[in-house]
């Protein structure tokens, strides 16, 4: 009951000094706002990435060249994954079901005087089965397209819309770096990821891509692979490693110049990166909360001095030390919690705004734990920095407090 009364007293004190209270809590507002905003963006990202990767399944494996500039073994060497590697894997890695080379580039796609910024992926006929992304209209790229380096393309829905290829884009012509390609199919809708519209995609035979984009594209080539089942994914990885060590002629005990990652490993790598971003932000936020806390302590000390007489009176009419202590502690905690609540609102807007600023970023995602964490942190700051002023108030001698002018 005393607790509830104290809470009312605290709110009254805070609201009767609105401007001062707001200025005091700015540190907390910024701190909590930053937590919520960054968590919103980071969580939005990781949510999306894991959904995307869950979509391709636990059988998904990628193989890419290891460009480690710090490793003298590799410096100056031409490190790449070749089609020869791919053929050897197909031949000897029995746990592998499908394999496609991936040549990925970003750029403009032109058609009938219009242009749209998207990306190109050079693949083979297995691509849809590996990434679980299929054609919804027309056909996908075939073996013949690849062998004949045919100038054909399968495009995403956004391209169909933006390049005004409706209603029937099949047979229409699109231009990539001056090379006309014939649209043979349209991919089903996929949505957005990493700030990219996944439907601004143009898929073409990897052989055609090598011709259009030249030597550099082969150097950046990676392999996307599907294992026969999730159970043999690990085995497939080992088989691929064995094959590549042989084709790359890597002696026993020497490091590999390639990397193989399972879906799980990609997920954990991504979350590791996002985790360290979160950690850095947490440190910044910690400092901001510290500054905010000092602000609260400062204003509480002022408040105690200002209300010395009130404290004396309360003691004269029967308040115990602990009643005064609790009153001022609750005031400090309420002050920082009010800052926390405003901060959450502010962080939410920050997250939304941040997501809007990054083109095509889907949506910020604020998990409940972040709100809980931010609030309990703000509360803890209130207690930590409020205890000294509250103690000071409670130890005032009633006579001296009453006499204070």
């Amino acid at each position, binding site marked *: 009951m005393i607790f509830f009364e104290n809470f009312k007293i605290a709110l009254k004190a805070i609201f009767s000094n609105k401007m001062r209270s707001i200025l005091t809590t700015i540190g907390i507002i910024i701190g909590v706002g930053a937590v919520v905003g960054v968590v919103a963006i980071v969580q939005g990202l990781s949510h999306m990435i894991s959904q995307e990767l869950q979509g391709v399944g636990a059988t998904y494996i990628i193989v890419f060249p290891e460009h480690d500039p710090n490793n003298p073994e590799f410096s100056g060497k031409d490190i790449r994954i070749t089609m020869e590697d791919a053929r050897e894997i197909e031949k000897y890695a029995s746990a592998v079901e499908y394999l496609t080379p991936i040549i990925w580039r970003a750029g403009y796609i032109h058609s009938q005087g219009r242009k749209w910024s998207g990306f190109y992926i050079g693949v083979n006929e297995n691509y849809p089965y590996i990434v679980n992304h299929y054609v919804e209209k027309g056909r996908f790229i075939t073996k013949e397209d690849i062998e004949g380096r045919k100038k054909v393309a399968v495009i995403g829905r956004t391209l169909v819309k933006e390049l005004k290829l409706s209603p029937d884009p099949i047979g229409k012509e699109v231009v990539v770096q001056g090379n006309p390609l014939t649209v043979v199919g349209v991919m089903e809708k996929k949505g957005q990821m990493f700030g990219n519209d996944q439907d601004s995609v143009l898929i073409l035979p990897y052989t055609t891509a090598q011709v259009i984009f030249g030597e550099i594209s082969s150097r950046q080539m990676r392999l996307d692979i599907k294992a026969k089942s999730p159970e043999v994914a690990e085995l497939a990885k080992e088989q691929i490693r064995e094959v590549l060590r042989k084709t790359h002629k890597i002696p026993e005990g020497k490091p590999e110049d390639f990397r193989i990652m399972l879906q799980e490993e990609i997920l954990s790598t991504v979350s590791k990166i996002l985790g360290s971003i979160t950690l850095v932000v947490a440190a910044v936020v910690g400092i901001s909360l510290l500054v905010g806390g000092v602000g609260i302590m400062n204003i509480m000390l002022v408040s105690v001095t200002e209300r010395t007489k009130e404290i004396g009176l309360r003691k004269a*009419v*029967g*308040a*115990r030390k602990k009643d005064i202590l609790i009153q001022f502690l609750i005031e400090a905690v309420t002050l920082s919690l009010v800052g926390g609540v405003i901060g959450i609102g502010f962080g939410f807007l920050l997250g939304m705004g941040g997501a809007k600023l990054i083109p095509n970023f889907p949506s910020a995602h604020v998990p409940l734990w972040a709100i809980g964490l931010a609030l309990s942190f703000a509360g803890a700051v209130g207690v930590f920095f409020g205890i000294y002023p509250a103690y000071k108030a409670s130890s005032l001698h009633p006579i001296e407090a009453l006499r204070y002018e």
Partner: protein
Amino acid sequence: MEAEIILMEEVHKVYRTGSTEVNALDGINLKVCEGEFLAIMGPSGSGKSTLMNIIGCLDVPTSGKYFLKGKEIEKMGDEELAYIRNREIGFVFQNFNLLSRTDALSNVELPLIYAKIPKKERRERAFEALKKVGIEGRAKHMPSELSGGEQQRVAIARALVTNPSIILADEPTGNLDTKSSEDIMAIFDKLNSEGNTIILVTHEPDIAKHAKRLVRLRDGKIIEDKLQ
């Protein structure tokens, strides 16, 4: 014989400022019974405020014994003193000491909050106390909207609300004009006639006249103690 409320035996209070010692109270012996109306007078520095503070349990004596309703005060800690102040003492101050952002009724309620009285009963008792001092019509007014006399009445209601054993008034008319002072003293007279024990500190003879017993202090000693 009426019941003893206050019994002081050889009470001393020594203040230390640096190396000098000041005997604010120098062997006070005082007995106050239920229903008395006592005025304490004396020049400034005579120790009347110190005596007041000790009677009100805001301070404890350096030596000597002080019994309030038979309980030995000088041995009590903060918690017990707070309890005594809450239940046995009602303070009235020269400068009213009302909480400025709180209306009259809530000001009167304050001691009851610390007495852990439930809200509904608190409101009722606070309103009753305001009625007793004739200011229930101003229950919802803020102190800044009340005249000095009205503020002091609210303060008296606050002192009354816990039904204390003693009402302690420290220069209650010191900040008031003559008319308001008369009104306030009329309230004290009435309260005393209803059986309340009142101790008043003042330096104004006109005000002291209302009391039935007069105690004069000088240099920390009682130099006169008479009925009037």
